[in-house]
């Protein structure tokens, strides 16, 4: 079992590698924002790989578990699509179609071979279609919103929600799943910091913020699905975590769509939207801690001896 220091080391490693590679890529492609957009996505990938190697966590091939399929299939496909989009190789209908296709197959891929698909659970396909629609709407909506506005908070909240999902999954008893989430948050955070710096004073999406925001949403979605269906992450917790970055994007989008009143400016303000995102995340963490104390925490508490002391 990896100790806390080992986990901190791996998380730091993922963050530093993503930050260093992203910075180097951004410097090299200073006059080519398109390439900088791809560079931050590549930096995230290498940050994640470095973190996984540092722990070490090796997905099995062919992927046998949901977490393996998440790391080996869903994330790489989403990253490839967003890298294509950042590079300008893909756009319009084909980009939407690719995202739609991945949204449709995401759950069948993650749940492959499990009791969810083989156990004859009633209504499971309705849930799969509903989840596909949620993912597609969240993915397309977030990407479009960030591309148009350069909103930096969506990806930031995604990082926070992924980290919170990791902690909640660990507290629910799945150490490996939670550690992967923390590595994801760290490497996405490292790449995001580069995009933040590059986007300073710029309008719209210039250095892959939309790509990182999209990757963050897909990563968060896959994580809460895996945590809910294979770990002990509750349905409400999964929904609240996924809602956090979407609320941030929605608040900004809605406040821009109407008249520019004081209320709209308040809703659009960073402080208001941070609170909006923090509430569901804090609720999930408090509930996860309470559940841990009530159940798994007891395994770590010494049981008093049955023999009475003299």
């Amino acid at each position, binding site marked *: *079992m*990896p100790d806390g220091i080992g986990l901190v080391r791996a998380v730091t490693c993922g963050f530093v590698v993503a930050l260093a590679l992203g910075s180097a890529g951004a410097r090299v492609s200073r006059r080519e924002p398109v390439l900088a957009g791809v560079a931050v996505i590549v930096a995230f990938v290498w940050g994640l790989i470095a973190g996984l190697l540092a*722990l070490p*966590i090796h997905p*099995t091939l062919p992927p*046998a*578990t*949901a*977490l393996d399929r998440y790391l080996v299939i869903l994330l790489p496909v989403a990253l490839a699509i967003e890298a294509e989009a950042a590079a300008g190789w893909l756009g319009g209908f084909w980009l939407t179609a690719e995202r739609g296709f991945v949204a449709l197959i995401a759950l069948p891929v993650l749940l492959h*071979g*499990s*009791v*969810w698909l083989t*156990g004859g659970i009633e209504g499971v396909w309705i849930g799969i279609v509903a989840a596909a629609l949620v993912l597609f709407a969240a993915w397309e909506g977030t990407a479009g919103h960030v591309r148009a506005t350069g909103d930096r908070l969506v990806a930031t909240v995604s990082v926070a929600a992924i980290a919170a999902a990791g902690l909640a999954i660990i507290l*629910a*008893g*799945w*150490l*490996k*799943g939670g550690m992967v989430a923390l590595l994801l948050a760290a490497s996405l955070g490292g790449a995001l910091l580069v995009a933040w710096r590059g986007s300073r004073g710029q309008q719209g999406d210039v250095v892959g913020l939309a790509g990182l925001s999209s990757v963050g949403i897909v990563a968060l979605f896959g994580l809460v699905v895996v945590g809910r*269906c*294979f*770990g*002990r992450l509750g349905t409400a917790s999964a929904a609240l975590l996924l809602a956090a970055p979407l609320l941030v994007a929605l608040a900004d989008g809605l406040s821009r769509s109407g008249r520019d009143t004081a209320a709209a400016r308040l809703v659009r303000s960073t402080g208001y939207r941070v609170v909006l995102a923090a509430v569901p995340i804090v609720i999930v963490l408090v509930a996860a801690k309470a559940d841990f104390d009530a*159940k*798994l925490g*007891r*395994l770590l508490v010494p049981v008093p001896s049955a023999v009475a002391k003299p």
Partner: protein
Amino acid sequence: MRRSTFLFAIVATLVAGSLPAADDYSYDLVHSSVGFKARFLDISWIHGRFNDVSGKVSLDRQDPTKSTFELTIKADSVDTANAARDEHLRQPDYFDTKQFPTIDFKSTKVKATPEGYEVTGDFTLHGVTKPVTLKLLGSKEVEAMGKKRVGFATELKLKRSDYNFDKGQIGAIGDEAIIIIDFAGQRD
């Protein structure tokens, strides 16, 4: 006379042909158990059992090599007398019961021994199938409580790391585990 002998031979052949060549026993959940133990901190053993097990044994007393043994264990039914620990064991760090709901054994080769049977078969745990050989003690049939009964006892030593269990979780609970099977079969 010759005609009646001929008829008898035909009837005897037909009856023999219709008789089952083997005795089929189903798993008697009440009088059987599948338990396990795993090393704890390399100082002692943690014991547990699986409460939901099914299986069947087909014994061919004339030709034991034609006998078959099957066992299916629902991994979800793990019971270590501690509900919180059982919940933990069902998760992906351990049995990953949503992904790998059953633990299975199916014989591929059977040999009679003075103590019972030596059964080679495919053992599937945590999604990994490996050939194993079990030494089964017992084979005597008795009649009790309105049924014909047979019983076997065996143990299977394994390493969790051989079955793709997360190596990161091999520490406090050690790599080595022993599955203890006491199979009571019954037939009408």
